[in-house]
């Protein structure tokens, strides 16, 4: 059963959904970008299209694929938020798949000069709304709360 399916897969295909990609550099310094074009492929892998060869995100993704470090994607639509963590597994810079996405980018905006097609293999997926996180906290850490919350 792929980690990415159902509602999450639908959100990944929705250009109106909010999609944030978080990466870290070689020293662990974080960096995030907002990119509504993040999507997924038929294998349930996430596709990120990097338009700037020397961007901080691209450099960070290079280090992630080299040293097997996770990146994170937060995905949100109306009333729902998901957190996906995974590993970059392919950095595609040539060949038929690259050409497919190169044309797709150019169709979106003729100025777009695609640098790299990043394929990210999901490793963890969780619901990330406040309600979901709070519910998990209550279940796993029942002693962690302010008492006035329990007052009559």
């Amino acid at each position, binding site marked *: 059963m792929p980690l990415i399916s159902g509602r999450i897969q639908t959100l990944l295909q929705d250009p109106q959904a909010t999609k944030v990609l978080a990466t870290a550099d*070689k020293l662990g310094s974080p960096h995030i970008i907002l990119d509504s074009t993040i999507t997924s492929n038929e294998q349930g892998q996430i596709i990120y299209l990097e338009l700037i*060869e*020397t961007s*901080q995100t691209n*450099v960070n993704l*290079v*280090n992630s*694929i*080299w*040293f097997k470090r996770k990146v994170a994607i937060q995905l949100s639509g109306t009333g729902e938020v998901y957190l996906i963590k995974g590993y970059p*597994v*392919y*950095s*595609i*810079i*040539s*060949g*038929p798949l*690259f*050409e497919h996405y*190169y*044309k797709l980018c*150019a169709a979106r905006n003729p100025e777009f000069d*695609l640098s*790299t097609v990043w394929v990210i293999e999901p490793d963890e997926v969780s619901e990330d709304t406040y309600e979901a996180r709070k519910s998990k906290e209550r279940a796993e850490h029942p002693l962690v709360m302010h008492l006035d919350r329990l007052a009559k």
Partner: protein
Amino acid sequence: MMCAVSFQASGQTSELTLQEVLEKYNDVSPFVIIKSDITRRSFVYTDRALQALDKDKHQYQQRVLIGSNGDEHAAVPVSLLLRDGTSIIAMPSPGARNPYVVDRIDGKLYITDQGRVVEEVEYWYKPHYYDQFTSSGKPMWQVASARPQRLDIDPNSHCHFWSGGNGCKFCNINANSTRSHKERNMEKQLKAQDVYETVKEALKQPGAFTNLKMSSGSILSGQEIFDDEVDMYIEMLQAAGDNFKERKFPSTLVASAFNERQLAKIYENTGLMTYTSDIEIPNEALFAWICKGKHKEVGYREWKRRIIAAVDIFGAGNVSSGIVGGCEMAKPHGIKDEDEALKIVLEEAEDFASQGVSMVHCVWVPMQGSAFHNQVTPSLEYYVQLAKGLSGIRQKYRLNIDMDNYRKCGNHPDTDLDRGIGGATFQCH
């Protein structure tokens, strides 16, 4: 840091294995380490892997200056690409002592070592223009070859330094071009019209190329040495350049060490943006032995001076010089100790960098047809330290290597490493 070889009780030396090197240098891209070792040790294909070659999709023959142009009767993939986009510029070597094996497992291609999977690989794809012909009937793949993101045009595959046995000892250029001419009727010299038409066709493929590179064997003739080579490049670069709407376009020339007048002439009359002249062996005494013709006709110091002088014309970050990494240890006159060799190479690289020139290395492959075909390359650890050292020098001098990076060329483990530190964010002087 001590490098490369450890001594066993028997007194024999033992190199670190790939796995040991990966563990020891865990701050270095494993893809770069694997690439270096595959190039160094070479590889072979299983029948299963060869069956995965699709002649409609993949490259199996290619015009190259050094190496082999392939054999149309025994289709073998031109080369390999790793998952992170790292190119491997290597081909199977019949004489390899301990080659890796490319195998097909569960529908995917892997490089394996002693039966163990090392990494997934992919064959190089064939660009759309490859099977087309120019108006003169020339197959376009014989006019321009293609690396994964680079268009290569080598207008003259005959080197005059070979006359009288003065060719560089690591190189097989004339042996390769003579064989290809004899067996496959591949011409050694290209025509400008063929170049124009091939580039025109290549540019029709969206996103296929990020750079155009030209290189050739040296031509010594002319009023002054290399004048005819300069004129040939101008003609060819103009023919290629006629296809671009802007006068200057991302391009590299890998050529003889031209003097300032010749460099200015090329720069002013073509769309060329960057220039490389390889010092090959960064040591005067070894250069005199290994690159005998170059030393005799120009000399190490003058060759180096001319490369540095090119910075005034092309700008810092737009001039590089290549070395055949490890060839400085060739027998019998090469440096015997790896630590000593590394020190000498990196000191000379730093001298270049301090004057605006990046030094880049390829992994020495003792090729058939070269004088050094029976030699043995240094250890894998030597190459890891060499790549780290050269990349570190560029960081120190804030030299940008966009002109020769992982995507532009793919033959330099050291510039592959720059990709992981945001190489292009360095400012030029």
